[in-house]
């Protein structure tokens, strides 16, 4: 049914998504159940799932409304950046955005955030953009996250970036390749920060040298130097959010988990697009405060926390309601995914050089870059996720494999075996897609997860019945 949100041929998906998202300014701050119901009924099915995913559970509602309003503000800044004399650069979700905020005249826009917005806000999700890419002859084994994130800018009039940057050469072929392709297709420059697959001190030092060259190239291209004072301001903001991130991590350890599932998605978007800005601090603060309050009151959505799962790779993000909300209602807590594991070094704010060195460490250890660009994909991935899962008290793991991710798919069998040996955690192996529901529908995901939790996790948690030993040695 056309409710006025249908995209027209050739329309720029990013601009369309922003236009639809502007509805949230019209919503009252304190949404009632009736308001949510009305909002849900007002929109088309895809957006209904988003409305439910973000607003149905009272615990999510206030935070997500707050967050999306701030996010919209940032996206509108991206939209207006060029008019204000700034260069707009596309960045991937494996790159710390704060480095770009440290420039006076560069504004970053994360392509995967664009893809996520379109998928969760636009009619028909990102399918038309994926299909457009296929029409260009691109292989269907690419990553939907960044393909859907870049294709809207290939189609029709609207926002165009001035450059593309990526750091996944050496850690993820599909990601790096689609960004390189976009650079060629759109005729805009590309800047590359290669991660050496070398975890030695030499590898880190080389990366630091690469980062300095990268900054220098951006300075030359944008015509302005990265000022130390601005870098410090951004890094201080970044580290305020880091403090809150650490607190947030600790809160997830409580049983039942006081952190709503949807906050995992919120953290991902914050880190990919907002870090280094006040908005990230404000939203993180609110997430921590709300989780603390839930901890104090013992609030949990389901009657019982049946399972605490660690998503060993990434969330599927094409249906917030079907994924996050459904699991929460079922008593399945999502503790995190690979993108939730961040390593922030002690930051020395004393000079530009020292802050860039810290930034190099952050980028080197950035989620996915660290693991998939590790000296050993499987070992680094296993070490990190096993640590996170154990630290947060997971009962089990779910590998939501994505068909594009050949690195993880190529080592997932080893990962699952070793996770069981090392941490005693069973892993449910699933294959689907982050943004494209056509690969594996959410209903199938739910069925598999439910069976896994009922058959494996619940049995694992239940106390074992001791077999009675009969005289003569046989078990009864």
């Amino acid at each position, binding site marked *: 049914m056309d409710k006025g949100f249908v995209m027209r041929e050739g329309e720029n998906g990013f601009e369309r998504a922003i236009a639809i998202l502007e509805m949230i300014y019209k919503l009252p701050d304190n949404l009632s159940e009736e308001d949510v119901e009305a909002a849900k009924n007002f929109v088309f099915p895809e957006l209904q799932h988003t409305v439910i995913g973000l607003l149905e559970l009272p615990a999510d509602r206030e935070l997500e409304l707050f967050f999306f309003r701030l996010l919209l503000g940032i996206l509108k800044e991206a939209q207006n950046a060029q008019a204000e004399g700034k260069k707009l650069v596309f960045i991937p979700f494996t790159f710390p955005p704060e480095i770009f905020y440290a420039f006076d005249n560069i504004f970053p826009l994360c392509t995967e955030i664009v893809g996520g917005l379109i998928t969760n806000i636009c009619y028909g999700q990102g399918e038309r953009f994926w299909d457009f890419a296929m029409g260009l002859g691109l292989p269907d*084994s690419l990553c939907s996250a960044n393909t859907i994130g870049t294709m809207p800018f290939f189609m029709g009039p609207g926002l165009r970036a001035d450059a593309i940057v990526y750091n996944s050469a*050496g850690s993820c072929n599909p990601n790096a390749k689609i960004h390189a392709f976009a650079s060629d297709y759109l005729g805009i420059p590309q800047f590359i920060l290669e991660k050496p697959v070398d975890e030695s001190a030499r590898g880190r030092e080389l990366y630091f040298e690469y980062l300095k060259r990268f900054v220098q190239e951006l300075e030359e291209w944008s015509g302005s130097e990265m000022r130390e004072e601005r870098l410090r301001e951004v890094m201080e903001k970044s580290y305020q959010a880091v403090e809150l991130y650490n607190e947030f991590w600790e809160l997830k350890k409580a049983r039942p988990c006081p952190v709503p599932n949807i906050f995992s998605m919120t953290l991902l978007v914050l880190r990919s697009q907002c870090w280094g800005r006040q908005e990230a601090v404000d939203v993180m603060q609110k997430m921590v405060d709300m989780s603390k309050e839930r901890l104090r009151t013992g609030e949990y959505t389901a009657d019982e926390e049946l399972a605490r799962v660690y998503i060993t790779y990434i969330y599927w993000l094409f249906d917030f309601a079907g994924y996050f909300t459904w699991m929460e209602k079922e008593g399945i807590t999502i503790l995190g995914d690979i993108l939730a594991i961040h390593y922030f070094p002690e930051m020395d704010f004393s000079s530009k050089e020292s802050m860039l060195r810290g930034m190099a460490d952050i980028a080197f250890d950035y989620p996915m870059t660290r693991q998939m660009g590790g000296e050993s994909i499987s070992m680094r991935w296993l070490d990190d996720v096993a640590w996170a899962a154990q630290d947060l008290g997971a009962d089990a793991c779910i590998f939501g494999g994505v068909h594009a991710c050949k690195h993880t*798919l190529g080592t997932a069998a080893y990962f699952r075996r070793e996770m069981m040996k090392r941490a005693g955690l069973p892993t449910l192996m699933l294959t689907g897609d982050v943004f494209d529901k056509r690969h594996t529908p959410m209903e199938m995901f739910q069925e598999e997860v439910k069976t896994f939790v009922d058959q494996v996790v619940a049995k694992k948690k239940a106390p074992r019945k001791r077999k009675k030993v009969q005289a003569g040695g046989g078990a009864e």
Partner: protein
Amino acid sequence: METTKTLGRETEIYNDYVKDWKDKGGKVVGYACVATPVELIEAAGLLPYRIKALGNSDTELADGEMSLFNCSFCRACLQLGLDGTYDFLDGLVETNGCDHLRAMFENWQHQKNLDCFYYLKVPHFLRDDSLAYFEEQLEQLKELLEEKFSTRVSDEALEEAIRGWETVREKWRELSALRELEEPKVTGSEALALEVKGSSMRSEDFSRMLSQFMEERKNAAGIRPAARLMLCGPATDEVEWFEEIERLGAVVVADALCFGSRAFATAMVSEGDPLHRLAESYLSSIFCPRMYLEYARRRDLLMETARRARVDGAIYLYNKFCDLHGVDSVLVRRDLEEAGIPVLVLEKEYSAKADIGRVKTRVQAFMERIGGGA
């Protein structure tokens, strides 16, 4: 002309040449990527052996480790690593060519735990800092080979190996010239068969084989091809594919394949000590889509090759799930077609015999399009 008649196609992974080498007490080090300087292995007195699958279509063991979304060539090679076919290897050099290849090597090493295993980390662009790093990598590889095989790699030995492989490249260029003749004296399938065979030989023997083959062919009658084709794409050792295409009347007069002309693209620089020269020469001659900033160089090389060989059309053939080549093929098709060279992009599975019929039909249609149809 019967293809590969005088040559004989390689059918055994552990072939007579390697057996003979091992029988004489020689050691063998495997590698997969053309970014690996084979000169270094040879200078250590070892036999460099390029990992191949020779059409193996059984991937049962490999499928237990890698997924079906991974490259079937890598899975076919891993299978042979896991089932013991490659147990004759005394060492293995991993490279970060692509995501599939990295996963293949990791699984191989997890299962086999080779004592001599080195991960050669090849940068994705050529710059002073990346070159210095790559040179250090080669130094480390050299030290590892010296330690594991109780040998010493002298500058003299390296120079000799460099000369040896330069001769191979020179011979390959001569062979390419015979392919590019108005009436080619060497077919594409023969060239590929030679490379497949030679990639498990030491340079002097490879050179000798090329010389003998060319000597036989020099005075032979040429072929009048129904179409002159160029094949582009990743690593494939499937001579059969070339043969099937050439049975349709076309001749693959040029290629830009990883088992093929790209393996001989290294242009040796003359300045500096041998290790530095190897580092610079190799890093500057990787015409692979993994070098993200160098599409223009790859395109120019393809254009130059296509023009020199006067091709009627190009076929870009790659294995399913190869993102590097899948994406590059879109740009190559756009640019070659703009330059008046028709391009057919084909995606296939490695060694999938069922694919041959489908591919033949498409090649036939393509040949009709470019005026070479029967």
